[in-house]
């Protein structure tokens, strides 16, 4: 009798491997379902999320990076996220603000990271050439620009308020000011022409 031989059917641990296998099967199945769900969400949301960050003032590479990071976080915490679309917008928005603040404070950190795989090769130059107009976004204060970006992404003021921890009135007030600035910009452009 040695430790390599199985016990004579009295070992309570004998049933454990089968239970482990069943548990593993269940987990694999759960993970596959989760992957499917998440992939669907990613495909539906990633463009809008990237544009949302661009609208907040991020460059396209920055936006792609932050959107991708945010999606990675979402995947890891997927089962605990109740409203994924709002969640990724909130998290991405905060990440962008943190990054923008850091870059402002540490201007000596200009080295760009390698481009996110999300971004097609040569996309940046082409994008900037085609959408020069984005540069014309009015120089809004951060809060107004943030609220404007959420609005373009078709969130309602109450949803924006909930996500940003503001009151609906405060959101509306910011939006009102933003619209005023846009109107001024449009009028100014027409005058120039």
């Amino acid at each position, binding site marked *: 009798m040695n*430790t390599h031989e199985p016990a004579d059917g009295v070992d309570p641990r004998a049933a454990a491997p089968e239970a482990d296998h069943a548990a593993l099967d269940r987990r694999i199945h759960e993970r596959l379902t989760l992957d499917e769900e998440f992939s669907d969400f990613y495909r539906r949301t990633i463009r809008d999320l990237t*544009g949302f960050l661009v609208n907040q003032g991020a460059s396209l590479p920055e936006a792609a990076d932050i959107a991708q990071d945010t999606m990675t976080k979402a995947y890891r915490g997927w089962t605990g996220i109740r409203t994924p679309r709002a969640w990724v917008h909130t998290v991405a928005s905060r990440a962008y603000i943190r990054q923008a603040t850091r870059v402002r404070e540490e201007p000596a950190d200009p080295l760009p990271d390698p481009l996110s795989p999300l971004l*097609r090769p040569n996309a940046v130059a082409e994008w900037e050439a085609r959408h020069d107009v984005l540069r014309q976004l009015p120089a809004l204060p951060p809060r107004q620009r943030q609220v404007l970006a959420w609005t373009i992404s078709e969130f309602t003021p109450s949803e924006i308020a909930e996500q940003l921890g503001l009151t609906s009135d405060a959101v509306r007030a910011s939006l009102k000011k933003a619209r005023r600035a846009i109107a001024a910009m449009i009028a100014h452009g027409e005058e120039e022409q």
Partner: protein
Amino acid sequence: MTEHEHEYEHGHKYEHLHERLETGTGDQVIDDQAVDRWLDRQRVLTHDLGAFLDVEAGLREVLLQSRPAAMTDDLDAVLDVEAGLREVLPTAPPESPTPPEPPARPEPSTADTGTETGTGSSAAEQLLLSVSPQTRLQLRTHPDVTRAFHTFVLARGLALDVTHMGDLAHALVFNLDLAHARALDLARSLAHDLAEDLDLAHVRVLDHDLAGIRARTFDLTHALQLAHALDLARTYDLTRADDLARARVLVHDLNHALDHEHALARPCAHDLARALDRAHARASARVVDRHFDLGLSLDIGGFRAPDHGPARPQAFNLALAHDLVNTRAEDVRQAIRSTLGRELPGLDTDLVDAFLNDFTTSDLSGVDLNGIDLTGVRWSPDGTSWPNGVDIEDLKARSEETPVGSGVWTVRSGTATVEDFVTHE
């Protein structure tokens, strides 16, 4: 109506934002439609982003980056971390100071003398409990038991040799070219050495010569195996005509040489057996006989039945060797039985060694050790209780930890009685 519904009630999502703005310079109408157009255009631009994004590549990255973490979770479900940890940690559990068993035990009767220690199994424990440690200590000093055990150890060593020999033969089948040249040289020189050794054995009929004889016989059987491989070469390597011709000559020479040595060795062995008989060591002589039986079997297997390949003679040799070990173990049992005056039903072949030498868990505190030779006794600092006055450090100095780190110590050979370890104050 909820706030959300209210926001969309007018059909245009920006309508609720339309307003007149009062400014300090007078009424100014915000061109709401222009602002809405601007916002819509902005939305179109955002959607256009899709052309610049490789969505599938991005998705793959997220899934792959996160997969290791998920996999780690999955692994947790199937891995027995604690069991793995136990295997890695070197310390044995305190209640069982015996070292871990060897990873594999091919045959029960071929266990290595040098490293074998008491098994931790209940059969061994039961056996050890059935006889008091004092009785066991006395048994191991009884001349009959000592002699029988000594031949048992020799037989076990031989069985191990045979096993190794089988490995060697197996390897040789794949190294036939190499075997060509070496076989004859080795066989000749070994046969020569054997003749010399047997002559010496004539004169010096001592127990320890048996080891030398055994080694030489072993070498001879090696040579026979080599020759066997050579013979196989003849079968397999049909394209090398020159080599074959040479090999045939070599095999022929070798046969002659070995026949000659065998003829020489037989009477020597006979004399040796008679001498050993006279020295009341019949068991030892039987070992020699068995060696020649083995040699012969290799001879038969190697030369007379090459068509069967190396498996059959090797299996035959192993069976013979195990038979020999079992016979020797029976001799030990017989010696113990007659000394003890009773049967020990659990004393299997692979427990003989533990029965006589394993004191790793024994309470010897009340045992009179005066005059008892402790050579070969296995003990453990945690499990063995010694009588008062035994200096453990001194005992350690005269022992060897086998294997190192196992916590099991074996008293080295030499006259080591308990008086040596008592601290005199």
